[in-house]
Each structure stands twice: as C-alpha cells, then as structure tokens.
C-alpha cells in the first residue's frame, strides 16, 4: 500500500529538510550562520511561526544551535549526525518504495539488482 504525503508534507518539515539538504551539500558549513527566521519566512512567503517550528526541529536534534542575539549556526558535527539520520531513513524512504513499485510492475528481484548495478556504472 502506498501512502504518499511526500509532495504535500507540512511546510515546517520541508523547511527543516531544505536546511538539512543545504548542510549536507556544503552550502551551509558547520559553525557557519544560517538565514534568520525573518529571512526564511520572507523568502519563502511563509508565516514566521512556521519557519520557527522547522528550525526548532533542527535545534532539538542538535543540528542547529542558537547564539543569543547573534543568530543560528550549524553545529560542529552536524553533517555526520545528518548522514547517520538519513541512512536510517534510507531503507524506508527509498528501498521500500523501490521494491513496492517493482512488484507492481512485475520486475523481478534479479532484474532490480541488475538495474541497481547499471545505475552505478
């Protein structure tokens, strides 16, 4: 069974993930400052409370920290933390969906493995 909330997930989660992606890609480096709540909300035209909620997710996970009166920064070690978290989600987010679709299309396990190998070539 496919439950697909992916495209329309709550905005605060998308904000948090957008920042995670930027950290993973190196756009926001560890110990560097990230955009403020105001910058995020103005830029994406979203309510500041929504942006704050997204940021707080990352603060709770120790990926972002706040410096009082200065701003928000990427934690030292955030990349490692994020990679660990994303690896845990990799099976659920990608592998499961891949297999479900393969079953729907009658693609055998052997074929899937071949396709994966082709993807790496």
């Amino acid at each position, binding site marked *: *069974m*496919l*439950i*697909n*909330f992916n*495209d*329309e*997930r*709550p*905005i605060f989660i998308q904000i948090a993930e957008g920042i995670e992606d930027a950290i993973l890609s190196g756009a926001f480096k560890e110990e560097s400052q990230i955009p403020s*709540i*105001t910058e995020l*909300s*103005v830029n*994406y*035209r*979203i*309510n*500041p*409370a*929504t942006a704050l909620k997204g940021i707080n997710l990352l603060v709770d996970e120790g990926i972002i920290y706040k410096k009082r009166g200065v701003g928000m920064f990427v934690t030292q070690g955030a990349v490692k933390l994020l990679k660990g978290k994303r690896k845990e989600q990799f099976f659920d987010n990608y592998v499961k969906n891949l297999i479900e679709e393969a079953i729907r299309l009658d693609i055998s396990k052997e074929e899937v493995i071949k396709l994966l190998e082709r993807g790496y070539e």
Partner: protein
Amino acid sequence: MSIEINNISKNFGSTRALDGVSINFEENRIYGLLGRNGAGKTTLLNIITNRIFSDSGEVLVDGMHATENDKALSRIYMMGERNYYPENMKIKDVFRWTKEFYPDFDMEYANKLADIFELDLKKNVKSLSTGYNSIFKVIIALSVNTPYVLLDEPVLGLDANHRDIFYKLLIEKYSNSPATYVISTHLIEEVSNVIEDVIIIKKGKIIKNETREELMSVGYTVTGMASLVDEYTRGKEIIGTDSIGGLKSAYIIGEVIRNEVPEGLEITKMDLQKLFIQLTSA
C-alpha cells in the same frame, strides 16, 4: 490583548447576514477569514470597525466596548473595499490625513512602499485602476502601525507580481513589528502559507476556527476505483466526491489508519483550498 467578538448577529431585511458569530482575534497572529462571496466576511469586519452596527452581541477591543468608542477603534485599521476619501484627493494627501487619525502612521515607510509598487503619489484616488486602488490601500494598511489590521480582499485586482510583493512585505512587516492581521479573502491558495489561523464562515456562521495545521490534518483524499473507494469510505465522514470515469476521489474528515487502506487506493493530503471548497459548497 485581543479583539473579542461575542455572539454577533445581523439581519439585512429578511437575510441573516451573521448568525451568532463568536471569535477571538489574539495578539500578534495572522488570521485568514475565509468564506465565499456573500458569506458575511465584510459584514463582520464592518461591525468590528463600527461602519455598521450589529443587531445583537458585542465586540471588545482589548477589553473595551468597541461601539462608538474612539479609543478602542483607534487600535484597529481596516482596509475595505470601499473608499472613504473624497474622490479628488491626491494620494499623498490621503497619507497626510491618515497620519492625523493614526499618529503612528509611518510616512517614510509608506513612501518607500509607494516607490516599490511604483505608485505615483501625485495621482488622484479616483484615477487609480482597480489594482492600484488595492495597492494604495495596502500601503496604508502596512504603514499605520495599529495593533490590529483588518484586510478585506487585499489583493483584489493585483497582478501576480504585485501579489507576491504584497505577501513578501506583509511577512517582513509582521516579522519586524508584529501585529494582529486578519486577512479576508476567497483566494485561499496564495494566503494559506502566510496565515497561522483559519476561520471559515459560511452563510453567516463560523464553521471552522482552528490553526491552519489543525485544519489541514483533519482531512484527506482517497482516490482509486469507484467500487474500492465506496467500500473504503463506508461509515466515514465524507464531505465531497469527484468522479472521472471509473476513478473516484472522496474527501474525508478523519485520521488515516494506514494498515486499513487496501491495495489500489491512494491517500493524499487535502490542501486548504480543496478543504475549503468541500466545506463551503452548498
């Protein structure tokens, strides 16, 4: 600190425009007041600002009765569809007049916004196009600095670029100096990310008053073969359906129980617009 609306009713002849409406507009939040044409949005805003009077019920602004109370009313600015200025007044003169009534009106900021929107201050109000008429009023609303700002259809006639600028400025302004904004509109999709709370009014009655997130989480759409959808939705609260050929979508209020959903049905979230249409259709 809030605008408290208690049990307001209003009749126009035999039409019940508002029917026992109670809302609390709290400090520093952005509300969406959503309703179809004629649902009672403007009537409600007009009552709050004393442009018309209710038949029963009361409005309290920060604890003060609003009826014919200048102190209470000076805390609210309403941008309405109608103009209350002499038609041949120049925009810069309207700005000056506004400053007389609302001492916190920020003239410098208003001029800056006029510049951004390319609004010529020397023009007469009556010479403005529908779009620029809205822009002119939006500029005042964003510059008055009252604790409560009511915007009745603020983007009426604005093109896509100007609407985008408006939402950007609104969020910027709200971030820098928070106030309570009530945005009445039927253009829901655009405003849905900006608002924090949603009030849906239908035929003079409040049918929803929740945070946007609460409201969005109450509904979902299930799509698939009509027979499968019918079987799945039996006993559930269905607020509407769409069919194309043998494919059917049902809009459901309630929580999805994931392992209850059979193979072949797809579950998607309902966006605010869709939810609104289903909740307010006749």
